[in-house]
């Protein structure tokens, strides 16, 4: 099948590539752009390890065609640290997962981080219940989720504090 030319802005950089229509976004990111942060987990849109941000919405890159992203802006975990508001080396959600031990094996973490980033844009000061609902599309088989919730709470507090300092 004929390849299609697409132009996608990934982590702030425009990428012009020819893709097969059947190429999934996750394979485009990992194999064409060597961005291997987003993981391939279940491949059936259940686990959320492949979560990335497309045009300001969390999506599962295993169930999204690269060709559908023509003209879109994609953010992956690799682009997250550069968005740190306080100029730190880690974004607040990354710092939260580090400080609160929000990961063990780390396989689900890139998806968790990028989902947490978007979730906190959608709901900057969530309750614990809202965090659990907002992160429900990301499975972790190690942590039992408690520390992931704490990590998101840490990030929410830090983001609010940074906004106050910046404002």
């Amino acid at each position: 099948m004929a390849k299609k030319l697409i132009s996608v802005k990934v982590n702030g950089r425009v990428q012009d590539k020819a893709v097969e229509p059947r190429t999934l976004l996750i394979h485009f990111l990992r194999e064409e752009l060597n961005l291997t942060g987003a993981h391939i987990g279940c491949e059936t849109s259940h686990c959320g390890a492949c979560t990335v941000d497309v045009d300001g919405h969390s999506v599962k890159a295993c169930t999204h065609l690269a060709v559908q992203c023509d003209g879109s802006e994609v953010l992956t975990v690799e682009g997250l640290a550069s968005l740190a508001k306080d100029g730190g080396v880690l974004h607040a959600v990354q710092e939260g997962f580090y400080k609160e031990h929000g990961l063990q094996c780390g396989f689900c973490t890139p998806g968790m981080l990028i989902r947490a980033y978007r979730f906190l844009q959608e709901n900057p000061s969530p309750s614990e219940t809202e965090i659990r609902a907002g992160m429900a599309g990301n499975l972790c088989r190690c942590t039992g989720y408690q520390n992931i919730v704490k990590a998101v709470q840490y990030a929410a507090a830090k983001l609010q504090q940074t906004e106050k300092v910046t404002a």
Partner: protein
Amino acid sequence: MIPPAFDYHAPRSVGEALSLLGTLGSDAKLLAGGHSLLPMMKLRFAQPAHLIDLNRIPALRGIRDDGGDVVIGAMTVENELIASPLLRAKLPLLAEAAKLIADPQVRNRGTIGGDLAHGDPANDHPALAIALDATLVLEGPRGRRGVKADGFFVGPYATALADDEILVEIRVPALPNGTGWAYEKLKRKTGDWATAAAAVVLRQAGGKVTHARIALTNVGPTALRATDAEKALLGQPLSDASIAAAATAARAVTDPAADLRGDVAYKTAMAGQMVQRAIRAAAARCA
């Protein structure tokens, strides 16, 4: 898992999409949110030579007020249903029930139209549409026609949608003030389909039930309307006895398939339970 090769088309209007569908015929599949079709293609359950992506047709998205009806574009995604102030005001059942579908990421892609047109008896919108007496607006080469949700679903993955038609919008009568509603869904975990679910729309006047619509998810070859269950409630005060009678009548129309969610007896029983819970929840919301 990578889907088999196909040619990709991204029309910008319904007219363009229909013309592609007319030319490509049964070699083509319409792509909405893709969260049923792409997994099926990965497993080779579907191998279309062409995909016609409806995501770049702005006219198919959005929710608008049209007199007594709310009109929902077929490509409106679940999270848009949840966030819509218009739905919260006029069709809160749809906004609330959408929260029980899949997970936050999937709800950014999954569409109401895709959920309905796929014809999967496990999908939630068919029973909701039946309970709300929705009309599905289908557009084809001969123009538009409306088909009631109650009658649209023919069998597993089979609907009244013709090969050359596209589901363009869903027209739903706004719920009159005082209407009670509920969608009770039993599921094993986030993102799972229902083991059994029931949608109920209820109105009462003078202490008696004046309107009842009851529909069931994933306990038969299609979403099911439980007409006898409705009759068990109509024209009398709601009571433990009438609710139990409605549940018995609902169980009688089910024909569930045994799977990892449970055997036939369990699913049948759970369908009855969901009906009872949904009736009670709807009654609590009746003014």
